[in-house]
């Protein structure tokens, strides 16, 4: 398919110009070299992530504890959503390679069809990422830090002595009202009726949430639910420091803000590549549809954007392993 080395060529002819040492066109070569440099950028980002994680003195969140939600479902599905995103990207990579293959047969209909499928796949991935970001930003109920040492019993019967500054996690229902309470919303009142702690939000509709249980070690190893009097004791030992979800300044997942920042930057930078890839794919799709490549006699442009699109899949394979799995 590609070029072969030029044997039996006189050196005069070889050095006379008009030859391609790599056996590919300049456009494809520059796409390859752009991808080499772009991959080093991602390599640098993932290395920086690894170094920050290794240098971290407090525990770093683990993927299967943080990313275990599915849209519209309640239970816990560790990494299933991310695996689904990976699958979507692999499939769209496949439709792209089928478009390239169709191009090699000068099959215009095939190219158009598979390019369209690739665009749809890319949009599905972007949509999935939007949901994942939204979920990450909203968080799982929020946390507060302990102001004093508390000893509690977990659901497994083990006693835990939690030091000052330990994060304690609320459930979604209670956390929602706690956010207003922590931010000084005067419509949210804390009620303590014989150890039954309740947050009530007054307004057009009155909402209330009772404190049933709190969670310790939620995003690291050894997640435990604490309920009853122990949960009340944890709530009473709370400090002023609440965190809800994640943004550029604070996050409930880790003590270090760099965790959230790496999430936003690495997946965001990759998502931006996907977005630009979809835009370029749309352009190539319309060019193929209009017959530009048919007139040109070859479909090498499809091959070039194909390289970029596969590269996006390639980067995601590494992000999946080094950010989510390990």
């Amino acid at each position: 398919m590609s070029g072969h080395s030029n044997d039996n060529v006189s050196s005069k002819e070889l050095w006379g110009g008009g030859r391609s040492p790599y056996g590919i066109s300049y456009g494809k070569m520059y796409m390859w070299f752009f991808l080499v440099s772009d991959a080093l950028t991602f390599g640098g980002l993932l290395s920086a992530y690894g170094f920050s994680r290794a240098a971290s003195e407090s525990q770093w969140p683990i993927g299967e504890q943080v990313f275990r939600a599915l849209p519209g479902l309640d239970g816990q599905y560790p990494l299933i959503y991310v695996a689904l995103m990976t699958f979507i990207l692999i499939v769209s990579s496949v439709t792209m390679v089928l478009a390239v293959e169709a191009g090699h047969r000068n099959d215009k209909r095939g190219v158009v069809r598979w390019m369209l499928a690739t665009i749809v796949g890319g949009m599905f991935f972007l949509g999935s990422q939007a949901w994942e970001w939204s979920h990450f930003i909203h968080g799982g109920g929020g946390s507060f830090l302990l102001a004093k040492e508390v000893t509690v019993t977990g659901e497994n019967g083990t006693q835990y002595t939690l030091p000052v500054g330990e994060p304690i996690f609320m459930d979604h229902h209670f956390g929602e009202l706690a956010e207003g309470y922590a931010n000084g919303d005067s419509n949210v009142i804390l009620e303590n009726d014989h150890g039954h702690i309740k947050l009530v939000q007054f307004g057009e509709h009155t909402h209330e949430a009772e404190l049933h249980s709190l969670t310790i070690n939620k995003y690291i190893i050894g997640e435990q639910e604490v309920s009853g009097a122990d949960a009340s004791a944890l709530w009473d030992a709370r400090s002023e420091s609440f965190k809800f979800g994640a943004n550029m300044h604070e996050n409930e997942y880790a003590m270090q803000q760099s965790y959230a920042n790496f999430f936003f930057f690495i997946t965001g930078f990759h998502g931006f590549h996907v977005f630009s890839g979809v835009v370029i794919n749309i352009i190539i799709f319309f060019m193929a549809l209009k017959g530009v490549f048919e007139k040109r006699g070859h479909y090498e442009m499809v091959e070039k954007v194909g390289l970029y699109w596969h590269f996006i899949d390639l980067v995601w394979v590494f992000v999946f392993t080094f950010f989510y799995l390990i």
Partner: protein
Amino acid sequence: MERDDLIVNDNYSLNATHSEEAGVKIRKNIIYVTVLLTAITAVEVAMGIIFKRAETYTWEAIKWTFVALTLVKAGYIVMSFMHLSEEKSVLKKSILMPYILFIIYLFYILATEGFGHLFNHNSLH
């Protein structure tokens, strides 16, 4: 308009075409790689769910298994989907060599500097 940026006399990927019969074979290979990549991802996720991180030694082995599986996946994407295996060896080398150097550099910097924070509490924290 005549294009002066194309070198028609050379053996180019530009002229890469194949017949219907060859296409059938290529598509078969594409399906094979797809199934393989999907299966590896499924295995990775299953391993992440089954094995718990508390058992340090097991997890260390699993981590390296993840890295190995990732490299297998990456190899298939680059060599098969991106057709690098069909390119000239000089192109292959100029694309892959930077990474080999980069990885050697990373191992070097990890081995020499990576544990600095464990010994140097005064200056870093």
